């Protein structure tokens, strides 16, 4: 049982059930604030730039990127893995914290899940655009055809990728959506606009709020949650196999699946932290997303950062222990030292060293520093993928084919475009969907607050 005296209050501000509904739905019914328009404008600009990047890539060719015949993957794959990693937070939050009975997740899980959806959407664009012949992309699906025994190569990690990511996207989406059904009904009930009533009515699938409804809702959420839990592990494990299954030094590593999953959760939580700090500030949700929440995330990040640091050390150790001159070269002469040492040390500093500052309570309590540090984690995780993808390819087995790689404006545009897509999606989510799971918050409200009406009852 949750003990408020030991673990603190989850929802501040002496909220009643009606207050909760009111507070959370308020942004949806209020006039759209100026900062929203400004951000949306910028994000749309980035999105359009990205559309140009896509157009340029598809009509002219992948040659518009900085890749070459030796480094054949670059920003597109880095950003793909980065986004997929960020897309881990939502499901991880909902599932793992649910399993661990962390009640505090209720204020955050909705936003985290939304982030997952948009991040996976952003990520999903990269495998598409990075194909040389996007118009023949459907070849990757195993469909009946008239070409005799021509079938997909089920041995290829890229095929596993397609399956894993589409499954993860669908499962995450269903999980997120089903969780929103009671809240859509709440909006339907509270809105004055007839059009909104119709739309939210349809989106809530005619939710009645009766006991049978709640019973089925809980069951469905539990079932979906149970099914999605392994996906959190599988999707990034499989993404890691894009690298681990190859023979490229620095990629061919058994540590990759757990290392990638942990990294993904790390970056996902980092991004959740960034977004939550913004959200609670803009929508004045400090009572719901409390300092305690941020503190909890910061503690988790510290722990994961330790695992990350361990993984980095193990990689170096394995390279040395393997005795393979190619592995040793990649790690010691091409990452720790050498032309890419900047990227390597940025990664190490941002991911393994900076989060250790969270050991200090003062730092955990200073929201500005926490915000900056969350950005550092996002940068560090981007560099981790950069280090993996670029350093290994640019200097592999035969020194004669060593080449360098630099992104072009088109690649940067594509990345900016996905950033725009993500931010725009999150803004839409802020604007049209209850950003905090009303029903779930209500469900924990009674036992985790010191609200007078509740505490009186318990005596």
């Amino acid at each position: 049982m949750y003990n408020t005296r030991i673990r603190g209050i989850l929802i501040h501000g002496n909220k009643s059930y009606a207050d909760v509904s009111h507070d959370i739905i308020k942004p949806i019914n209020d006039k759209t604030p100026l900062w929203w328009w400004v951000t949306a404008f910028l994000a749309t600009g980035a999105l359009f730039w990205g559309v140009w990047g896509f157009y340029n890539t598809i009509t002219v060719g992948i040659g518009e990127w900085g890749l070459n015949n030796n480094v054949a993957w670059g920003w597109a794959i880095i950003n793909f893995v980065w986004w997929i990693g960020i897309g881990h937070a939502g499901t991880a939050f909902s599932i793992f914290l649910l399993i661990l009975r962390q009640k505090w997740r209720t204020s955050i899980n909705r936003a985290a899940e939304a982030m997952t959806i948009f991040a996976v959407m952003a990520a999903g664009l990269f495998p598409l655009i990075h194909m040389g012949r996007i118009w023949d992309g459907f070849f990757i699906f195993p469909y009946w055809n008239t070409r005799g025994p021509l079938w997909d190569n089920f041995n290829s990690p890229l095929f596993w990728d397609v399956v894993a990511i589409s499954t993860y996207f669908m499962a995450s989406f269903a999980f997120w959506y089903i969780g929103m059904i009671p809240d859509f009904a709440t909006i339907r009930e509270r809105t004055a606009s007839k059009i909104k009533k119709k739309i939210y009515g349809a989106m809530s699938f005619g939710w009645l709020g009766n006991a049978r409804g709640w019973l089925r809702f809980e069951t469905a959420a539990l079932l979906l949650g149970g099914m999605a839990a392994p996906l959190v592990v599988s999707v990034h494990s499989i993404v890691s196999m894009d690298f681990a299954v190859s023979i490229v030094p620095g990629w061919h590593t058994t540590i990759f699946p757990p290392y990638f999953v942990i990294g993904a959760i790390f970056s996902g939580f980092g991004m959740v932290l960034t977004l939550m700090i913004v959200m609670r500030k803009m929508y004045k949700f400090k009572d719901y997303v409390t300092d305690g929440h941020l503190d909890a995330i910061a503690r988790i990040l510290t722990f994961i950062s330790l695992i990350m640091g361990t993984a980095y050390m193990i990689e170096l150790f394995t390279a040395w222990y393997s005795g393979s001159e190619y592995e040793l070269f990649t790690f010691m002469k091409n990452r720790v030292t050498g032309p890419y040492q900047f990227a390597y040390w940025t990664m190490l500093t941002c991911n393994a060293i900076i989060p250790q500052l969270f050991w200090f309570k003062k730092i955990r309590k200073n929201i500005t520093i926490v915000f900056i540090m969350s950005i550092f984690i996002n940068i560090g995780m981007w560099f981790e993928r950069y280090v993996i993808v670029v350093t290994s390819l640019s200097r592999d087995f035969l020194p004669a084919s060593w080449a360098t790689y630099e992104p072009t404006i088109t690649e940067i545009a594509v990345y900016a475009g996905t950033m725009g897509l993500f931010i725009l999606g999150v803004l839409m989510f802020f604007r049209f969907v209850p950003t905090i799971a009303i029903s779930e918050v209500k469900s924990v409200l009674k036992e985790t607050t010191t609200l007078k009406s509740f505490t009186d009852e318990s005596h």
Partner: protein
Amino acid sequence: MEKQYWQSLEEYKELNKPTVLEHKESQPEFSIEGLDESEIKGQSSRRDFLKMLGFSVGTVALVSSCQMPIRKAIPLLNQPEELIPGVPNYYASTFYDGNDYCSVLVKTRENRPIKIEGNDMSKITHGGTSARVQASVLNLYDDARLKDPRKREVETDWKTIDRDMMMKLEDMAKAGQKAILLTSTIISPSTRELIKEFTATYPNIEWVQYDAVSYSAIRKANELHFGQAIIPSYHFCKANVVVSFNADFLGNWLMPVAFTKQFSSNRKLTNGNKKLNRLYQYESRMSLTGANADYRYGIRPSEESAVLMNLYNEIAKATGGQTNGSHTTTVDVKQAANDLLANKGKSLVVSGTNNLQIQLIVNAINHLLENYGETLDLTRPINLKQGKEADMQRIVKEMNTGNIHGLFVYNINPAYDYADAGAFVSGMLKVPFKVAFSETCDETASLCNFVCTTNNYLESWDDAEPIQGSFSFTQPTVRPIFNTRQFQDSLIKWLGLKVDYSTYMEEYWKAMLDQHQEDTGDFTAFWNKFKHDGVIHHDFDKTDQPKFTNQNLSAQKPSKNGFELVLYEKMSIGTGKYTNNPWLLEMPDPITTATWDNYVCVPVRYADENGLEHEDVVKVNGEMELPVIIQAGQPEGTVSIALGYGRTAAGKAGNGVGKNVFPLMNFKGGYYDVAGNTVTIEKVSGKKYPLALTQMHHNMEGRSIVRETTLPKYKENPSSGNEQHLIDDKNNVTLYQKIDYDGIHWGMTIDLTSCTGCANCVIACQAENNVPVIGKDQVRKRRIMHWMRIDRYFSADPENPDVYHMPVMCLHCDNAPCENVCPVAATNHSNEGLNQMAYNRCIGTRYCINNCPYKVRRFNWYEFVNNNKFDYNMNSELGKMVLNPDVIVRQRGVVEKCSLCVQRLQEKKLQAKMENRELVDGEVQTACSQSCPTGAIQFGNLKDENSVVVQNNKEERMYHLLEHLHILPSTSYLTKVRNKEA
């Protein structure tokens, strides 16, 4: 039922027979699940009708709105004999462009030449080719070629040209006005005869031969020593020790294809052979020959005569000859001298320097070593390079004084490549009547009143006598594409003869019949055999070498100050005749790996001391700005720059590429030499010039990539240098079942001891497999499309490194890492061991590129065909004629790579099948293995125990590249063995 009539009883019976169909169960006409009864029976309701109507109208509307461009194919009305569509015809011919000679076979498809292959029957080139020969087929389809003859820069017809010309020739002859016929060296006996006739008819015309890079000092030296101004034949194959001074005989010197063949015949350790020849190279730049030398010494050009004299003195001391005064030099000659003395009569000393002093010493050394009649043959002189500086200087002077009234220029471009081009051009402007016989409107032709457009050699008749007694035939393989006429036909016309040149040639040969018809009695048979074989070789009875008369020898005092410039011909561009050939422009230089430019190669130490970096720009002699490449092995006090660049009238690909350095030739003692001019080098601060190199890292990083050993070590232990193979072989175990191929398992072996890195295979592959040219920017981005590349590494001292060349193409791994990562199975394994690419299936994920440890896979970053951004041969209707119809042209976005010339494998397999026989080893050749002038690349069936590849794989020198990865490549390498003391 229709009434049936019958004519016989049998027919009646037949008619009344119940039909077979009636016996069968009645079946629907077709059966598809989900169709109802009426549909199966083919009945349709009104609704079906409307559906069909709607669908068909929609389809028609859709289809008709995407119109395909109309392309007409006109069939032949009369099928020519011997022309079967899809089956190539081969014609024996000769590549001779005024500089290089090579006997070739021309592969034609549907009457158009698409590939040049070496002629195996030649006793000189033995089926070898060079990159320039391979690329020459593209010159035929060059957009810069003139389409009509020109009169004062206006296109005209041959009638006008002939009328004007004959009138003018008559006038000049009557007035006794002097005219010059200036040509390249002509090795065709028929053409020489014709020119003789022409100059006899018009005695006012003087015939002068000119070479852009002169070899006249050798002729002069032989004239002084032996009384004959000739170049002897060299027999590198008979020499155990070769000492070469600035003679890049494996690259560009005199007859590189023939010399490479000869030299490499003694660089083989297969079949139990344990002997190698030894090459000492004293040179003033890092040449391909130097890269292959066992001992290489860097010298300044001014040092060469002193070094040679020291060598002469060492040998003279030992043989009791007369020694001469000399100077001390930085390099050692004792070892070379001892080796030479130990191999008297089986050694060879050559020098590529066009300096009489030096060539005299070279002759004297060879004389002391008794090499004449053994490795040098004066009775069979080489006919190439007959130009003399003195003649050229004289006529330039005469032109400038206005004494010359007519100038006929054939097959040369002195307005560009004459060292004193300014004087030549100003002289030309004083000549009132100028005629150029040229394929393109080059620098010289554009100054002429008339341009008589000549045929490409693939459209011409000719003969050639590159070495006295060895003949080679040139026959047209395609009708002249444009309104062109070969030079000889023009002369014949202007002589007023009523024959064409092929008849003229035939008649000339008929007159010479006695000399040639030994084997075949009658002329027609002889003539047909000559046309068929393309070559005739006469074995003379060994005649005595001419007598040696002593000459005074002297050596120059080596200079120590300043930079001495060394100009050189690149393997690709040569003297600049082919600067518009995009294949050659994009061919990586075997030493620098640079494409598309010329540059200044500076010594490593100088660059370190003066803060020069790669791509910095320097001013040569204070005026010419060129980028810098810091070249390992460039001797102290020298810089080198390639000739052939800086053309202004080459064509769209070659114009303005690089800088012209012909004016920097060294003129000394009446000879133009490529080396020895003193220049100043000065850094242009802050300026960079991008260079497109295909390799940026030159160190093997201690990895066992090119494995090497020395001959003594090899004799002791054949596995020496290859110890890693024994370890890796032991580790090569697997849980999986080994793939067993049925009948054929294609494989290749590459002998690094023989390979010289000449890059001929690269261009052969490009021509065979329709590899696109992508331009300098893309090469700089490391996207070169060549299916095979020559990796080049350096080791040891950067100032005089050991150089390694390693051809790398797809190695067709049996356990290919590329195959299992392709999500759509576009790259897969054939049952003959080929790692094949299905371009149509590829979606371009490029995972295979990443997972290929050899990085031999190429991605089509752009549409390289029909794209104005890549305005090379594949963007021109004419240029596309060179494409091999057996090989698909790849689309943007797909990955491609070496297929082991699968089209050739299929062709020969089918042929063997039709003849109902087994494939013979060596019958199937890939483009690279076929054209390799050293025989380093061998191709065959690994299942055939007697094949060359299997024999090679049994050598202890055999290893697979990166074999510890257990990817089981089908291509193996043989260790590089240098003939060095341990």
